[in-house]
Every structure is written in C-alpha cells, then in structure tokens.
C-alpha cells in the first residue's frame, strides 16, 4: 500500500504532463483524437509525431486550452486541471508556439512580447521602455537574440520563432509546446534553435516538440509519442528506435525514406531563362544575369540559403513581379509579363512556397480549390453551367490519388491539417497536364508518408517527360530528388552540378555560403547550348 503510494507519488514527480484517455470530436464529427495518452517527464524533450491530420495539433491545442477534450483528463504537475482557455493554461505554466505564428505584424517585437501583460505607468499608459527592458532581459537570459524595436513584419522567420518562444517564457511557461517550429526555418536557423532548446532543457524546462523531419527528432528528442489516425501508437525512447521504425509506426507500412529513381534522359529544352536581372526597390541586386534551362525529363534543383534570389526567380516566372532585364520562354514562347492564366495555358504549374496565400482559397471547398485552375474546361462544364457530377467525380479521384485526408470534397480547405492543405495544392498542380512544374518547397510541413508520395510523383512525372524545377530549402531533399542542381548565392548562380550523385553536404555548403564559386564557363553549361 505504502509502496503503491510512493510509486504514485514518484510518477507525480516524474511526469509534468499527463494526458489520459483524451478523445476529441470536433463539432463537424471528425474524431481528431481517440483515447490518446501522453505522458511527459520533467526536463525532457518529448517528440509528438504522426502523419498529417493524425491529431497532433489538436492534442496540443487541448493542452493549451484552445480546445476542450470531449473526454479524458489532464494532469499538470500532479494536479488535475480544467484548461478552459489559454489564460488558464498559461497560469499552469504552459506555453505554446503555434504551427502558424501568433504575432501581430504591425507591432514591435517588444509590444508583441508583453501583449496581454503590458507593463504600465501611472495606471493606464504603456511603459514601452519597460517592455523593451523585459524583452532584452529575457533575450539575454535565454540566449535568444531578438530586436525589441523592430516591427514583427520586418523581421525574418527565424527571429519570429524566437519571439514566440520568448513570449511563452515571459509568461512563466515551464512547459513549452513547439508545433512544427522548424518547418519554416533554414538549416542554419534550425541548428541555432536546437542549441537554444538544449539550453532550455538544461535549465529544467520541458519541451514538447512536433516535427515531420526524422533527422531532427533523432537529434534532439529524448522520447517520442506517435499518433496514427487520432490514436496513440505508444511511447518510445528515441535512442531505442530507428527512423524506419518510427516511419512504420506513423504510417502503418514501410516507408522508403530515400528517393528511388533511374537516371534521367533529358531531351528538348522546355524552360529557358536567359540573363534575368532584378534590382529591388532598395537598389539591391536580387537576380544577377541568371541563365539556365530545364529540359524534358529532368529535375533541376535550385539549392541555396533562403533570400539569395530563389523567391524572386519564382516570382518572375509566374509574373508576380517584373524583371529589369532578361528573357524566359517555355517551349520557345515568352512567358514573362503574361497573365497567370496564359502562363498556365502554356503548361506551367506552380506549387507555391506560401500555400496559405498563393496556394489555396481557405474558405473555398476542397473541390473548388482543386478545379480553380481548370474551371473553364469543357469537361467540367455543360453549356454555361458547371457539370457538378463531372467535377465531383474528378475531384473524388484526385482526393483518392493524392491521399487527401478529409470527410468529403465539400469541406472547407482551411479546416484541413497543414499537410493536407499542401496535398490539395499538389494534386491540382500535378494533375493539369503540365509541361513544366515549378515546385517551390513542395514538401514543407508534410509527413514522411506524404513526402515520399510527393517525391515519387515528381520523379514519375519527370520521367514521363515533364520538366521539373525544384526549389527547396531542405538540402537533403534537393540533393536526393534533383538530377542536376544549381546553387544560388547573392542573386547569381554560383555552381552547377550536372550529376547530383557525386555531391555531399560539405561541397554544397561551400557554394551556398559563398565561399566558393565556379568559373563562368562551368556555370554556363546549365544552359545546354
């Protein structure tokens, strides 16, 4: 008896978070969590893993008081709690960094930091100086560098991430939930974040970490809980499992983590970009005589640290911006300056980097989003009206083919989990008979299963004679998936590698950081002339 109590007390000591038998059914009938257990020890980094839509964010929203469980109990530091709102959760020492930033863009970093707990002078006025002081103090204490006076809309994502973490710490959080914090970070920023997380862990903070990147999980977490289809697949010590095992538990089958593809046999040039130049409004040269070609049947990757012209290049190709000089043609026809519909008519598809802004209309249904690029086509119309049956059938097929997890095609897209939203975009862009696919960060925020699927699709499409231009901040992705590859640095093509198989991180790193640059003639070979 005494022993049992001692054991119970012991577990109280040991676990700071106990979520027991949690079930969550959303008002629309989706059971996002079913009888899930999550036990987190004090001072550990605990991974929460699972496919897109497995219910990770939902589980964390309940821990942060944003959603209430349909049944089950939550025990924090041995005390049974009823987390009815974030305010309550915060008072219990829980802080959350959300999958999509919860910052107010027009406010400064310091103002965002103290939002809701504003220091005041003479009772009503904001003590802004104090806010800056607090920001500086925490930023130093936790070694998270931020600019207190900068407006949030002007700071890079990496810094936004830090502001989010500091926001939680300022409110006294001892348990930090990080929902896919690395999805939008570059490799360098991720490395830095990990250092900071370890630092926090050493100071006794507990971290719950969600990520789809297996390497990260292996590197930084102590234990992991896996969800599949809203159910728990158990908890494991990270060092006792392999990546392959984790993937199998998540997906329920074996996942091929490496890309399988045969050697490309490129033929005619499809996309031809020549001497593209762009100077932004601030006089900074973002594109400097960029020339390259993408041929039928090959995947050309663009690697590089974000902000070295990749975004501008994609903007030019899809007429979201206008270059100062240069040409771009698809199968010999100009595409610069054309309306997007005309560009699409020439067979260009785009998987945009920012899916929420350029990829979908959140309030539209899945079906509407899937046909938005082809709603004028004969197959989907009957006279002046839509042929609803045809639309429904073709969408049903896409939803099945692309494994989009949803109740029906009539659901609003914004209700889907992040990864499934991406699948909607990919399904649309891959299925409109393109001659050229521009894939900008196509697997960002997507689970291993879906990533494998999208990569396989890309290879398959390229081998069937489609030209693919792949831009990715994920170095291993560009290296594995591309047949050949260019590196961008400072708006220029710094290197061209005809065969990616002979590459490694180190060689790439030197070019990406601008330490090395290939001679002009060598780079020029990517024009295939």
């Amino acid at each position, binding site marked *: 008896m005494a022993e049992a109590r001692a054991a119970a007390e012991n577990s109280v000591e040991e676990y700071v978070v106990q979520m027991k038998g949690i079930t969550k059914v959303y008002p629309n009938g989706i059971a996002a969590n079913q009888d899930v257990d999550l036990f987190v020890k004090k001072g550990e980094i605990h991974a929460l893993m699972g496919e897109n839509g497995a219910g990770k964010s939902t589980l964390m929203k309940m821990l942060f008081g944003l959603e209430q469980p349909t049944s089950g109990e939550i025990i924090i530091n041995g005390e049974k709690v009823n987390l009815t709102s974030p305010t309550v959760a915060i008072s219990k020492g829980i802080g959350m960094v959300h999958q999509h930033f919860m910052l107010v*863009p027009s*406010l400064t970093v310091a103002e965002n930091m103290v939002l*809701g707990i504003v220091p*005041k002078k003479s009772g009503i006025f904001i003590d802004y100086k104090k806010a800056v002081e607090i920001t500086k103090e925490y930023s130093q204490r936790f070694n998270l560098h931020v600019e207190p006076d900068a407006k949030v809309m002007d700071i890079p994502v990496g810094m936004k991430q830090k502001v989010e973490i500091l926001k939680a710490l300022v409110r006294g959080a001892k348990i930090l939930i990080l929902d896919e914090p690395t999805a939008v970070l570059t490799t360098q920023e991720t490395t830095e974040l990990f250092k900071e997380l370890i630092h926090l862990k050493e100071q006794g903070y507990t971290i719950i970490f969600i990520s789809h990147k297996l390497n990260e999980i292996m590197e930084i977490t102590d234990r992991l809980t896996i969800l599949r289809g809203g159910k728990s697949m158990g908890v494991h010590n990270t060092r006792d499992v392999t990546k392959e095992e984790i993937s199998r538990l998540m997906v329920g089958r074996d996942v091929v983590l490496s890309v399988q593809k045969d050697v490309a046999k490129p033929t005619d040039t499809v996309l031809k970009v020549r001497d593209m130049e762009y100077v932004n409004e601030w006089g900074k040269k973002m594109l400097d005589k960029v020339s390259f070609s993408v041929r039928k049947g090959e995947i050309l990757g663009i690697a590089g640290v974000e*902000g070295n012209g990749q975004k501008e290049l994609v903007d030019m190709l899809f007429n979201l911006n206008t270059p100062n000089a240069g040409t771009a043609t698809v199968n010999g026809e100009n595409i610069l300056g054309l309306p997007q519909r005309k560009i699409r008519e020439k067979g260009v598809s785009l998987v945009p980097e920012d899916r929420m802004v350029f990829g979908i209309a959140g309030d539209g249904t899945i079906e509407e989003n899937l046909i938005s690029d082809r709603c004028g086509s004969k197959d989907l119309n009957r006279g002046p009206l839509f042929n609803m049956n045809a639309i429904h059938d073709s969408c049903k097929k896409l939803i099945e083919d692309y494994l989009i997890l949803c109740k029906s095609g009539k659901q609003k897209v914004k209700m889907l989990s992040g990864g499934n939203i991406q699948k909607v975009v990919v399904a649309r862009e891959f299925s409109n008979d393109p001659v050229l696919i521009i894939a900008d960060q196509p697997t960002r925020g997507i689970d291993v299963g879906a990533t494998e699927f999208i990569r396989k699709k890309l290879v398959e499409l390229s081998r069937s004679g489609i030209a693919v231009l792949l831009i990715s901040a994920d170095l291993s992705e560009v290296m594995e998936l591309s047949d050949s590859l260019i590196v961008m640095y400072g708006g220029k093509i710094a290197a061209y590698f005809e065969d990616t198989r002979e590459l490694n991180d180190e060689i790439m790193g030197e070019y990406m950081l601008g330490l090395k640059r290939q001679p002009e003639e060598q780079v020029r070979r990517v024009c295939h002339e």
Partner: protein
Amino acid sequence: MLDFLSMVFTIDFFYSIFRITAPILFATLGAVVVEKAGISNIGLEGIMMSSALFGSLTAYWSGAWYVGVLVALAVGIVLGFVMGFFAFNLKTDIILTGIAMNMVGSGGMLFLVRVITNLTEGRAMASTTSLITANLQIPAVHIPLLEDIPILGPILSGHSVLTYLAFILVFLTWVMLYKTSLGLNIRSVGENPNAASSVGISVIRIKYIAIAFSGAMAGLGGAFMSMYYAMGWSQDMVAGRGFIALAAQAMGAGEPLGSMLAAMVFGFAQAFGIKVSAIGVDSNLVSPIPYVVTILGLVVFALVARRRAKHQHSAAALEKLASKA
C-alpha cells in the same frame, strides 16, 4: 475669376469648415477605433440619427443642452452595444447589422418621433425643429487671446464646445490607441485575433469596447447635428455623414490625425458647395462636389496604399536578407 475667389474664400467660409467638419470628425474617430479592432461599423449613420433625435428631445424636456448631449452620448453607447450583441454574440453579419442600424436610424426614428411627440406634445410631429430654441443650442466658446488675432481669430474662435471637443478627441484617440494597453489590445485584436486570444486577451470584450466607442462618437456627432448644426431633428438630416466618416477613415489610412485631415477635406468640399451655391451657382452643379471629392480621395488613398504595401514588402525582404548576411 479673382472676384469669384475672394467671394468664396472669406473668413466665414473658413470658419464654416470647422463647423461642418466637426460632426464628420466625431464619426470618423469612431470609425478609426472600430476599424482598428477589425470591425467595419457602417451603422454610424443610423446611430447618429438616433442619438440626434433623443438628444434634441431630452434637451427640450429638461431645458438644458448638456442633458441632451449626455443622452445622445448614452444612446450612442447603448446602440453600439446592441450592434455588438447581435454581431458578436448572435454572430450576425456585421455589415447587415450596420444596414439594420441605418434603417432604424431613418425609418425607425421617424416613427418614434411621431409616437413620442404625439404622447408628450399632443400631436404627431415629423421633426423636432420647432422644439429646439436658441437657448437649447450648444453654446459657443470665445477663446480670449486667440479671438483678437486678425483673420485667424474669427476663424478659430467662437466655435461650439463640441467642435473643440471633436478636435481634442483626435489627440486623445491617438493617445488611447498608441499609448495605452487598451489601444494595444484593440490593435492586436484587429490585426490578429488569434494572437490576441492566445495570450489571454478577451477578444469579444475588446470588440465590445471598440464598437461602444464608435457608438459614443457617433452619438456626439448626432448631438452636434440636432443641437448645433441644425436646430432640432428632422428626417435624413445626417445626410450621409456617417458614410463620409468611413471614407475619411479609409483615406486617412485609419490613423487619427490622417483621418482628421481627410475629414477636413470633406468639410472643405461641403463648405465650398454651400458657399458656391449661396453666391448663385446652380445647386445641381454644386451638390455633387462633396461626393466627387470622396471618390477622388478614395482613389488617391488606394494608390498611396498600394505603393506603400509594395515598399513595405521589399523592405521586409531586404531586412531578411541583411539578417542572413
């Protein structure tokens, strides 16, 4: 030509700009604050109408202008809360709620004025103009030293208490929005309600405060209309000022000072229209002026906003770059 100019741009013309701007300015400040909280209150017009009626009636009953003003203020606040209740608690569309408010303001008030005056005065009146006498008008203030300065004195001095209050409120609104935590909360709720609620700010509470504030401002504007600008309430007397306020808010990029300037542009246009028709120009030619100015103003605003957005976009990109380097 020169003759025409000297006939139009007289001292009392400039004086009238302030008088004409004041009611627009009140409503504009309401629009500024409520928009900052992410709410488009197109019902300002209706609130102005309603509070104008009750202000004039209570001033008449009590015999004191300030009672009328306070009641108008209170009616504005209550109607703001009513709109909030429908829009935030019952989740009606805010635009439709605003339209409903405006219908209450025009048809509903005409109905009420007839019912009420029938009870109190013994006959159903369609306006309260016969009730408001000069002693119930909001008093004018003569500012000692300022008054004596030539030209500037007669333009700036001798306005009603509420006229001065309107301009003082521009500053106070700015202080409220940018220097107090309430203002910070309002701005964050308007920009990213999820962010606000994730740090424990009650979004609905802030929205109620903002819409009640806009009601209060429209209430003061209404009081000004029926107890100073015109003597008494009559149908359609607000004549679109609640909508012009929304335009001024947009033209001023939602900032108190800028919106005040925009409101003054409209005040200028109306004063110009009045003056020009007074000196004999066909009023059919003149009456569109304020509305043409509104449209031109909005076009200019849209162009400026687009340039600014582009600028900001690249500024952000550059910042990003600099931090990477």
